[in-house]
């Protein structure tokens, strides 16, 4: 088991180095052409001394491999650079924002787990019924829905129209205020962020459960005298849930990246919204720093998923040990 984990961690390293190379290349348009100073300053006119100052400060005159080595060295030491606009270390800024994004992503995952699993189970157990058709079609609609448009429509309906009609309404944006308890601010962004993933979760749950229900061991369980509910819950769910659980792990990572749209729609002060604002201000250290942290989190989550897979599925756990 330990060997397996160690090997997975070792496999992560080249991928992560690849990620840093790609981000380094993207971060330094000097590499692919264009003036790196202009990248920082934008179009506005600057004096020659300021220009030289910038070149020196960011080491732009050094050879590329030296620049990359510096970048990598900083990264390993947790130095993500300094924001151009805010003159604060990027790591400090991100530390402020990350808890908000995690809060949103966790809330979304909980919504997704609940509705995805329930819808998937109903759909599989009552196969071909009205409910199954409903779940199957609505998951297709959900995956086709632009997330940000869903967010806007929710704002229009529950934020504005409900208020207009004198119904209990929800706050339009932000994550706290005097009017509502904090948790209420979480509802619409979390639902929006969860929408697409919930559809996938339901589909995976459905197809896994259907596959498991056709297995011979389910018949064996029924032959022992278990009721069909006991057979499905006791023998089916554990098998069907293994891929579903791993999906949730992977999806939590995907959500960290997907928050840009949702947070922008709801002005949610998380990392995604910060990235959006930083792009507008050409504040590249924030964009790059946030990206690399998100990628790192995603990779760690994937690793945890692989490990948990091994814990959940005895075939893998022991298979590795023997091998």
């Amino acid at each position, binding site marked *: 088991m330990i060997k397996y984990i160690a090997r997975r961690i070792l496999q992560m390293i080249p991928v992560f180095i690849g990620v840093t190379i790609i981000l380094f290349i993207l971060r330094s348009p000097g590499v692919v052409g264009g003036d790196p100073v202009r990248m920082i300053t934008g179009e506005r006119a600057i004096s020659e001394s300021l220009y030289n100052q910038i070149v020196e400060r960011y080491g732009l005159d050094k050879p590329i491999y030296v620049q990359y080595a510096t970048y990598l060295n900083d990264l390993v030491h947790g130095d993500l650079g300094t924001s151009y606009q805010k003159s604060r270390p990027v790591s400090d800024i991100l530390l402020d924002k990350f808890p908000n994004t995690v809060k949103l992503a966790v809330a979304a995952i909980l919504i997704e787990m609940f509705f995805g699993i329930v819808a998937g189970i109903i759909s599989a157990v009552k196969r071909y019924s009205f409910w199954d058709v409903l779940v199957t079609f609505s998951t297709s609609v959900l995956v086709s829905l632009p997330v940000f448009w869903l967010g806007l429509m929710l704002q229009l309906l529950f934020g504005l129209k409900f208020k207009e009609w004198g119904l209990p309404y929800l706050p339009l944006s932000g994550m706290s205020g005097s009017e509502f308890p904090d948790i209420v601010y979480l509802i619409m962004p979390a639902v929006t962020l969860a929408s697409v993933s919930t559809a996938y979760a339901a589909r995976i749950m459905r197809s896994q459960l259907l596959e498991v229900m056709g297995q011979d061991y389910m018949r064996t369980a029924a032959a022992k005298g278990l009721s069909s509910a006991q057979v499905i819950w006791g023998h089916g769910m554990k098998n069907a849930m293994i891929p579903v659980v791993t999906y949730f792990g992977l999806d939590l990572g995907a959500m960290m990246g997907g928050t840009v749209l949702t947070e922008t729609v709801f002005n949610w002060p998380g990392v995604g919204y910060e990235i959006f604002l930083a792009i507008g201000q050409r504040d590249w250290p924030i964009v*790059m720093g946030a990206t690399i942290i998100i990628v790192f989190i995603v990779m760690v989550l994937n690793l945890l998923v692989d490990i948990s897979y091994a814990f959940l599925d005895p075939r893998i756990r022991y298979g590795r040990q023997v091998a």
Partner: protein
Amino acid sequence: MVSDITGFDDKRREVPVEVGAADELAVSEDLEYVETGPARSLRADALRRLRKNKLAVAGLIWIIIVILIAITADLWAPRWLGDPVEIDSTTAAERMLLSPSWDHPFGTDKLGRDVASRVVYGARVSLMVGVLAVAIAVTLGLILGALAAYYGGIWDAIIMRTADVFFAFPYILFAIVLIALLGPGLQNVFIAIGVLGWPSIARVFRSSILSVKENEYVDAARAMGASTRRILIRHIMPNAVAPIIVYATMSVGGAILTEAALSFLGMGVQPPDPSWGNMLDDARSFMLTAPWLMIYPGIAILTTVLAFVLLGDGLRDALDVKLKE
């Protein structure tokens, strides 16, 4: 999102009996087939199955309608609805933010332009992005996937590890960062979506080549002295084509969604040119006063993407392709 539009293999809905008796029944069913069904070609069989899938057919019809609308837009949209871009300064003031009416079926925007006309022209952008970006992704993916699978060894290692690196990025975040650095604009949207899409295609193609390569008839062809290229074209392509078609169809929907998202963030198509995404960005400021600005472009995206998703699902079932990520 391109990489998300796949990955569920619903069991085919053909099996009449499930647990238990299935083994007994399979025999009689096979016999039925032998007795009544003459051997049909795979393609005809797939087409027949696709035709039976009403949702997929509906998707295909909607796609055709949208394509026709986009192609013929110049012939009728400006005349009947109004120019999608130009602002008529003499009348703009009185035509601002009109709610839907006979003259302006989807209303007008803050500059007095007809929303329906803009939605029609937005279809051009979306379809163009969908088709071109996916074409870029498929081309890159096919070439790299084929190189990896056929030559193996170091080629395989380099290409597939690079794909792993691409997969490490959350898709939409990578697209946003890429566009942020390349600069906004439609051309860069093509490039970003195309470049980000190749790893999925390469993986699908590589694994289907590898599975075909295992087959004996490729060995046989090789033994008879067929060249590598010939083997690729004659033996491998026909078998690998089905998953690629399914994957590409689903990816078009994903590409349309991505373009809309990028334009919504102000990173795709730039105003005054209309795109469904940037129209939604404009609409945010008039959410309560002019909800039609928001509703129609959104419905346009939803229905078009849904059409590709349903068609993709239908193709997957008809061609009996299993896509797994």
